[in-house]
């Protein structure tokens, strides 16, 4: 059985101008200990999927469908049960570390409070565990830095603190929402290496949400490509990069400059991303797709249930066998 199983997830937001369909019929599974990437550009709904798992959507957002975790649908779970899951089983790491850290609280209290409140540890054991995780995320001189406030840490160190916080209760799944987007490349490399190591040591599953295909390639086993709130393609990361079958995936891969070949032309995807206020009746990528035929403009492709998993009427191998 999968650790987390998402089926037909739909997320919409009600605005004064009408409703916005951010996520449409998204389904995928995460196995225990897996590293899965949700890749997409802004507006693809990737972050909203993570938020909906823990019922963290904005007030005007509604999610329907199924998010099964240990036999329970989290979308309809009670707040009480959800709090238990948030503190014991699923942690989330945000892009901006300061959004999860209280600037007026010393690090020690912020971290140990979680343990004392949710796991009922006494302060001595809590402190021991805090030092353990700070050590695991490689914060040097952790003992002395416990009494510092978040602003006394650098950006990379803050993100380490947040990861430490996520690790405290030994979660089964970590949702990492663009954890390195705000960081410099050298720091990003360190954080990704850290997450990789944590995953190996503790067997935690990680769902990495990112727009950066480079980060995905170096980290994840499996990749889900989102566009316009829909799954375009889902595959093993190596297969996806070696043989993309969806024109959008291929377009994305070719839009990144190749550092080994300076003269290779960048092939940009023409046009702009779709407008989420209109519920699509055609493939959302069709207006920008160079392979699109008439059928692409009139039908909405479903994600295939057999590998290769993709939602496309005219996949690449049909054009260039």
């Amino acid at each position, binding site marked *: 059985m999968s650790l987390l199983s998402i089926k037909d997830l739909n997320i919409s937001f009600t605005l004064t101008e009408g409703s916005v369909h951010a996520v449409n019929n998204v389904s995928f599974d995460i196995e225990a200990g897996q590293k899965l990437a949700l890749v997409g*550009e802004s507006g693809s709904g990737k972050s909203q999927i993570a938020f909906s798992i823990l019922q963290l959507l904005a007030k005007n957002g509604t999610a329907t469908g199924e998010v099964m975790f240990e036999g329970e649908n989290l979308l309809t779970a009670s707040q009480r049960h959800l709090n238990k899951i948030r503190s014991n089983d699923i942690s989330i790491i945000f892009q901006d570390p300061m959004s999860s850290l209280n600037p007026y609280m010393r690090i020690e209290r912020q971290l140990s409070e979680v343990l004392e409140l949710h796991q009922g540890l006494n302060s001595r054991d809590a402190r021991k565990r805090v030092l353990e995780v700070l050590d695991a995320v490689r914060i040097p001189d952790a003992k002395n830095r416990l009494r510092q406030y978040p602003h006394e840490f650098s950006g990379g*160190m803050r993100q380490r603190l947040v990861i430490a916080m996520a690790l405290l209760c030994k979660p089964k799944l970590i949702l990492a929402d663009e954890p390195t987007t705000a960081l410099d490349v050298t720091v990003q*490399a360190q954080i990704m290496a850290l997450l990789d190591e944590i995953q190996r040591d503790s067997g935690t599953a990680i769902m990495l949400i990112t727009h950066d295909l480079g980060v995905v390639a*170096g980290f994840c086993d499996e990749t889900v490509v989102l566009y316009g709130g829909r799954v375009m393609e889902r595959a093993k990361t190596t297969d996806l*990069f070696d043989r993309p079958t969806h024109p959008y995936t291929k377009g994305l891969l070719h*839009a*990144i*400059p190749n*550092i080994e070949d*300076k003269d290779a032309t960048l092939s940009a995807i023409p046009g702009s991303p779709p407008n989420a206020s209109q519920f699509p009746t055609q493939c959302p990528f069709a207006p920008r797709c160079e392979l699109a035929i008439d059928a692409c403009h009139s039908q909405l492709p479903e994600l295939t249930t057999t590998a290769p998993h993709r939602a496309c009427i005219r996949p690449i191998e049909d054009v260039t066998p």
Partner: protein
Amino acid sequence: MSTLLSVRDLHVTFDISQGGWPWTPPKKLRAVNGISFDLQAGQTLGVVGESGCGKSTLIRAIAGLAPLSDGTVSVNGQDINYADKAQKKKLVQSLQMIFQDPIASLNPRMTVLEIVQEPLQFAFPDMTPDERRKKAFAMLDRVGISQRNFGRYPHEFSGGQCQRIGIARALISEPKILLCDEPVSALDVSIQAQVVNLLMELQAEMGLSMIFVAHDLGIVHHISDDILVMYLGGMMETSGARNIVSGPKHPYTQALLSAIPVPDPHKKITPQTLDGDLPSPTALPTGCLFATRCPKAQAICQTDRPQLGTIGAHDVACHFPS
């Protein structure tokens, strides 16, 4: 090839008030510390570095938007004095800039056509309104904004389209040098490529020289002829783009390169870790700027700041270049 823009020993220092008494001298924040380079006509210089390395301040200073505390900027051999009104006007025609935040770089109360026409009255004061209109139409058409949208306001466009409008505004006065301050870092991958391609096409068409500042070495490498690597406001290494990527000489450039994620799952990168924190730009190290985090640092690196020296095709500021 002729040198179009020449920057010599540029320093930018900001005063930071630190509370205390009104007469307490302010702290000095040294954002840019002695940058020199020449930009040839039609070439692109890429400037890379991590956040806080002063790369944006550098091009803002070249544009006259940040005060030079020392050094000179000259265009076509002529030293620019930003205080001189007549010279300032000439800048319009030689230097223009595009910005990081495409939407914030357009006045929200002006229509696209007004925005793009505005520079003309300063660059070509003799033009008739009709000529201005025609020129703006042609420019907007060139960057791919369709004519039915000319009367719209910036908030009605996407980030990528706003950046195109920003490019049109910068290029309509026919400058010789385009300064690009992280122009694509706020855009999505698929749009980034569109804007980079557009810039490269326009560069070829108009014979522009560009300074392209970004933190993404991949994009900088793609667009630039030469690359300048900055750290803590100082120059670490400069050379041709290919040289920098294939054989970096400075330990910082090496660390930066090793950390870039490669979109190929078969290649595992082995990032060099840089220990230690970035020193504060208000209290720079007396020795090499990079010494506090450098894996190769020796005693001399802590005390003497290395000067830029030539090694093969590279100019490197390091006591122990590889």
